[in-house]
């Protein structure tokens, strides 16, 4: 059934204005939740990307032997052309960290502390070969990649991103269901008027354009309201979070492309909802034949 998307101006008032309609509220809530979930997903993906970038080419050094072993390991690393920078964690900082866990008594305990450090490799530097050579020459030293240490976290975050994507799909399905119900409710609420229009020769396409215009306007209004509410909530939530996360390298940055997609979400929802409503109406009109 081919129908103009919207009816001509002279026909628009043929359906009555109904003050209390559920569709804008339902769509508004769905849009609100979708945007919040979508931004959360983007933030998670962005965090995965930031962490992966940060971890790439960075290795941690641990020497459990004597200070001489630690010095030898550090010298070997500094001499390697693959290494850009070696930073030892000062022993005082290690003890301070330890005392945070064990209390003031930590200073009195004669605990053997490993020498720890952070090694940054040059681009293209072969970390695995370097780690093998280091262990061969200084058996008490271990060089492990950050990515190995972060792997469980990254894997969890990726799982979370997948969960968010799944939630968005569920929300889209729920929206489609809600719009289908709203379309049928609009049809039922106006059945008497539509029957008269049918009786005077209106085509299904004309009736379809009348009802789907109503649904499209409802969906657009709901989407816009939901989007505005989501933006307000996100700004209110993210501004304090930026300060909170500053110590961790700042809040995750959201990719511009992702934000643009999110900005389009209400519009995409409106278009999809209109198409879903159109399909539901076509079916309902055909069933009523």
């Amino acid at each position, binding site marked *: 059934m081919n129908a103009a998307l919207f009816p001509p101006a*002279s026909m628009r008032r043929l359906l009555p204005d109904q003050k209390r309609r559920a569709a804008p509220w339902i769509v508004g809530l769905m849009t609100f939740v979708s945007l919040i979930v979508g931004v959360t997903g983007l933030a998670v993906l962005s965090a995965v990307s930031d962490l992966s970038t940060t971890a790439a080419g960075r290795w941690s050094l641990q020497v459990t032997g004597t200070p001489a072993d630690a010095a030898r390991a550090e010298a070997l690393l500094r001499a390697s052309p693959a290494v850009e920078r070696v930073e030892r964690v000062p022993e005082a900082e290690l003890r301070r960290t330890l005392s945070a866990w064990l209390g003031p008594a930590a200073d009195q305990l004669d605990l053997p502390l490993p020498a720890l450090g952070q090694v940054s490799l040059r681009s293209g530097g072969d970390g695995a070969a370097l780690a093998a050579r280091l262990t061969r020459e200084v058996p008490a030293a271990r060089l492990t990649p950050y990515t190995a240490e972060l792997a469980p976290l990254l894997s969890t975050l990726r799982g979370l991103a997948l969960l968010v994507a799944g939630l968005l799909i569920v929300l889209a399905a729920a929206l489609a269901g809600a719009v289908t119900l709203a379309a049928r409710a609009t049809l039922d609420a106006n059945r008497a008027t539509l029957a008269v229009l049918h009786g*005077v020769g209106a085509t299904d396409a004309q009736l379809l354009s009348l009802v789907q215009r109503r649904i499209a306007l409802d969906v657009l209004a709901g989407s816009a309201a939901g989007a505005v509410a989501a933006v307000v909530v996100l700004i209110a939530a993210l501004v304090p979070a930026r300060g909170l996360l500053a110590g961790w390298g700042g809040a995750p940055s959201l990719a511009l492309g992702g934000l643009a997609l999110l900005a389009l979400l209400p519009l995409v929802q409106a278009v999809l909802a209109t198409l879903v409503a159109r399909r539901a109406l076509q079916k309902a009109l055909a069933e009523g034949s």
Partner: protein
Amino acid sequence: MGLRYGTGAEVLAGLDLRLAPGGFYFLTGPSGAGKTSLLKLLYLAQRPTRGRLRLFGEDVGEAPREALPAFRRRIGVVFQDFRLVRHLSAFDNVALPLRIAGQDDREIEGPVREMLAWVGLADRASARPPTLSGGEQQRVAIARAVIARPELLVADEPTGNVDAAMANRLIHLFEALNRLGTTVVVATHDLSLIGAVKGARMMRLEGGQLSDPTGELRNPPPRSTSGAAA
């Protein structure tokens, strides 16, 4: 042809009926005889459950759903319960068939005002149905049915809510349309109307069957028949 609703008994059985183009027909019969069902077949709100229905020379009983609106635009209908659109003014109700046919507001204005004047509602053009009396609503319904100069006019008790003078005026409107070539079918219990239209034919429906399917019976009907039809 026959018609049944759902799995019930046939409300119309073995109807064999031919309406001559340009004819004027009155359909009478006791309440529950199936007059409204027969009218529904004529204005394409129902399809026969058996047999053939040909309208304007075409078989519409089996026509696809998409083809029906074009036929309906050639038919004017006056419903017994008026079926006006409550939120639209009298003007907009009368204008409905023209709007559906794609005419714009400029083209519609003149004919609708003229038709409203004809049915005596020129000063009620902006009134909505709930504020109109039963008789006024009936006149709006009639104006809507005839505004597009239909080829077939089907009216179910069109004068049931108007006084004798207005009923006479409306029947003359139908006659005028009939003279222009419109086939008119009026279901009524009002036997005085039947006598008012010269050359009109009467069909009597009882128990789902036409007792005078040829339409040859001229009005006024015999006294005994008129008693049964009232």
